[in-house]
């Protein structure tokens, strides 16, 4: 069962990574305009020409 000492932290770290990514996206305003994001899927005006 010592394998748990490795696996459990890995599982938690991976989940925590997902949570951190979500909170970052939330803070970054990516959930402000869900429909607009779908509309902009083909526009590339965020890239430098």
């Amino acid at each position, binding site marked *: 069962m010592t394998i748990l000492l490795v696996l459990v932290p890995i599982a938690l770290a991976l989940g*925590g990574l997902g949570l951190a990514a979500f909170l970052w996206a939330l803070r970054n305003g990516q959930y402000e305009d869900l429909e*607009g994001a779908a509309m902009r899927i083909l526009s590339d005006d965020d890239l430098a020409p």
Partner: protein
Amino acid sequence: MAEALDLSSFVRRRDDGAAWMDFAVEGISDAASIRAIEAALCKLAGLTKARINFSARRLHVEWSSGTFDPARIVADLAALGYRVHPFAPRAREEDLEAAQARWLLRCLAVAAFAAMNIMLLSVSIWAGEVSDITPETRDFFHWLSGLIVLPAAAFAGQPFFRSAIRAIKARSLNMDVPISLGVLLALTMSVVETARHAEHAYFDSAIMLLVFLLAGRYLDQAMRRKTRSYAANLSALRAPVATRIEADGEIATVPAAALRAGDTVLVRPGERIPVDGIVIDGRSEIDQSLVTGETAPCAAAAGCEVYAGTLNFSGALRIRVRAAGGGTLLDEIEKLMDGALTQKTRYLRLADKAARLYAPVVHTMAILTAICWLLAGRSAHDAIITAIAVLIITCPCALALAVPAVQVVAAGALFRAKVLLGAGDAIERFAGVDMVVFDKTGTLTLPELGLDSADDAAPAAVECAARLALSSHHPLAQALAARADERMPLDSAEEIAGVGVRAMIDGQEARLGAPSFCDLEAEAEQVRQAHPEASVIAFRRGAETAVFRIRQKLRPDARSVIASLQAQGLPVAILSGDAAPAVGACAQALGVEQWSAAMRPQEKIAWLAARKAEGRKVMMVGDGMNDAPALAAAHASLSPITASGLAQAAADALFLGERLAPVVAAIDIARRANSLMRQNLLFAVVYNLFAVPLAMAGLVTPLIAAAAMSGSSIVVTLNALRASRAAREFAAPHVSPDPAPEPAGSPRFNGATP
């Protein structure tokens, strides 16, 4: 637009000096329009950011220098065919709500993350219990669960803890008190039990409870935010602009919201007056139906008081924006409003009622359990553990979702039926309605004037007169102009102020306007005799003559809506500020027996109070400023979106569009939602009837608690989804429009003789 548009009052500044403002955008429907608008704005020098929020239909722009004029944005986008309207900075409330939504979502994310990880551990323990888990591993898993849950619950539980503390400070109980208590006790007990190497810990129950409740609360808030932002956009779209006369005599177009008391504005014929004020110069006639419900225009001259939303007919007026004063109609109405609002006993919401019953019962039950176990000779530890298990299993997961889940679905259904809900508890009050009272002008009738007698005149004459009318600003002519098939005004047309329009058509002079202008006074007099409520407008081209009747028309489905309300057993009444003949004719046309005319605002309130004393729950549907106190005083209230600002603020909900059908839809959907709420509450009671005895007997394990909680939440949520079925019925035209045109000789109502 020759005059400059002054938007400075809408611009807001950030700390670093950058300026920004928001616009509501009309007519964006796809990716191409987003690109077109943003690309066009990118080219404007000085603008640092332009971004469209498609979900909210808003445009956000930022610029750094002080020299940029945001009016250029309006002009440039108008050239592209997009209309944008400055968004009034009442957004502070909205900012707060957006922050609240983000906070709830963050709490939900943390709770859900913790719940997923705990389930991983809990399932292992449950599975281990029937196989070969060692006590050491189980303890390890319990400690690990506690390590994850305790910080997560401390963070994600804040919305409930704060609300519970507020409620206790106010010496009342809400649903959050038993929730907070349940979560805290479950966590404390689990930590103690884990320390004692016990078999059961309830970390998973506590966090799962938080996830379910946060999800419900977030959805509830998101729905309300969506409705509110939609309503705010609509009001920005309809926000009037005013022509302000500056100190140096120049005129500038400004949004009416930017006017200050003491400013002077110019109102041309055919325009709506943008503000409350005093006429300082000019002479005209004013249609005050939005204020008093009266359709006969009244004369306005220097010194007269005029109100926002009224329609200026014949002459240009200069108006001084009103400073706070006393003794005017507006003050009187505001005083009545305050009275009505304080008298309205605060409606006790279903959920709060349930919470008041629920919390004491559950807590007594837990204490009783502990006492019984002690009497039965068990240890204090066992007694307390069982009592806490009772609290955990009864934790009002289903109960706390029972009402909000239905409200979310029903609010969505109402939204699709074109009803925008203002107050959260309005659904329950709509459901209780047993009588409907309508205002006449602007509510049963359309807010715009319409041509009534086109069937008497030759179609060629109607078309010709309508094209002439395109060149006029007079409201009567504009009602006629709506009938023109060809939308190009005639080149030779000239308007003679206060008299009419004339033009040469095929070498023949055509005239449209006052009867005297067309030598048709005798004919016009006949028409007036026959239809005293209609306004007349005369037309002559050579020998061809016509006298048109212009009046406010009934909403297209008014008759069938009233019939369907009556068929449901709801008595219908009309209370109007208009004169008796017009109201009587309207009531007869609609088959309404109970009506009162020439009602002043306080008489409307008194009438409603009398019905209330009889035990009736009245729904008031009205739009005028004079209806606002009655809307506030009624059990439930509804306003069309064209209503005066005061009425909109007083109403529980607004409805969109020309049709009256949303009134029926609102009552129907609310009734269905209410019965679903009651079903859900009943289900929660039944669930507790089964679960509580189990818990009291000490038979509840964490596995049973988890299954019971998620099971009951899912049942309640699925049941709530049925509320949207009602909406689908209303998506198809539920109430058929009345047969048009009106049969000849049908009672005439409304209108005025100029």
